[in-house]
């Protein structure tokens, strides 16, 4: 492990915020607070992207994740009025099990990083993260996956609409939600 003092402070602060917020997401009792903490995490990760010269990605991350996806989560929580519901937490057995599993995985990951040969890659090119270069690669090398992802979205949209549609037969006993979702 490199010494902490040699690491520049913006990285340290951003990492600290990310980890803290992520922990809060996981441990908070209220889903709303979890969502908000998650949005903060995403902001910090976007900041990391900026530091990594991936400016376009940073913006997209903010717009798509923090802006769209997380707002969707918020909508659902509010529409279903889920926040009031107190989630019955799992037993300590599960707490220990989950902690041990996650810890073990972290251990294994770090061990693999330690043992991997030290190829410190430093061939940054200033332009990699810019819209122009990204767009060029996206519409040449990755055109087919790009088109396919469009189809994936379409399928997801249709699926979400179908799932969210109220079942006519069940109309009478489903008055909990006020509106259609998605």
């Amino acid at each position: 492990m490199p010494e902490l003092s040699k690491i520049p402070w913006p990285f340290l602060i951003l990492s600290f915020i990310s980890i803290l917020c992520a922990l809060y997401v996981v441990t908070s009792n209220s889903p709303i607070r979890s969502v908000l903490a998650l949005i903060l995490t995403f902001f910090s990760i976007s900041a990391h992207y900026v530091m990594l010269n991936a400016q376009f990605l940073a913006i997209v991350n903010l717009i798509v994740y923090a802006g769209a996806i997380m707002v969707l989560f918020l909508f659902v929580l509010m529409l279903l009025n889920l926040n009031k519901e107190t989630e019955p937490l799992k037993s300590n057995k599960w707490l220990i099990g989950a902690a041990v599993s996650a810890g073990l995985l972290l251990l294994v990951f770090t061990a693999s990083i330690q043992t991997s040969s030290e190829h410190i890659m430093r061939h940054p090119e200033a332009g990699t993260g810019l819209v122009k270069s990204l767009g060029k690669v996206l519409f040449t090398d990755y055109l087919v996956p790009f088109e396919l992802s469009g189809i994936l979205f379409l399928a997801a949209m249709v699926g979400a609409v179908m799932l969210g549609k109220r079942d006519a037969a069940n109309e009478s006993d489903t008055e909990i939600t006020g509106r259609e979702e998605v």
Partner: protein
Amino acid sequence: MKPDSIFHTVEISHYIYLSCVLFCIGLFGVLFRRNAIVLLMCIELMLNAVNLLFTAFSSYMGDSSGQLFVFFVMVVAAAEAAVGLAILVMMFRNTRTTDVSFLSNLKG
């Protein structure tokens, strides 16, 4: 500090450690929490950890492919969130709960 200079002071292993930690936190949440919506959020967190790793490698290697993969991960994440939340709404409508343990009732 200018963005360019970060490549000289921060090594890529730092980003790797950071994303590992975030990933494991997300994983812990998936294992520990019972609320389906929080579960989905934890999955988003794990995906973001992976995205961070992709971007770090991409920037350090000067190859934009890694960043493009982040886009595709986002596509999948967005689709997953939409469908997952729709399923969740459906489930809540029918069972009045978002507890994933309840889903064990689906067992035949």
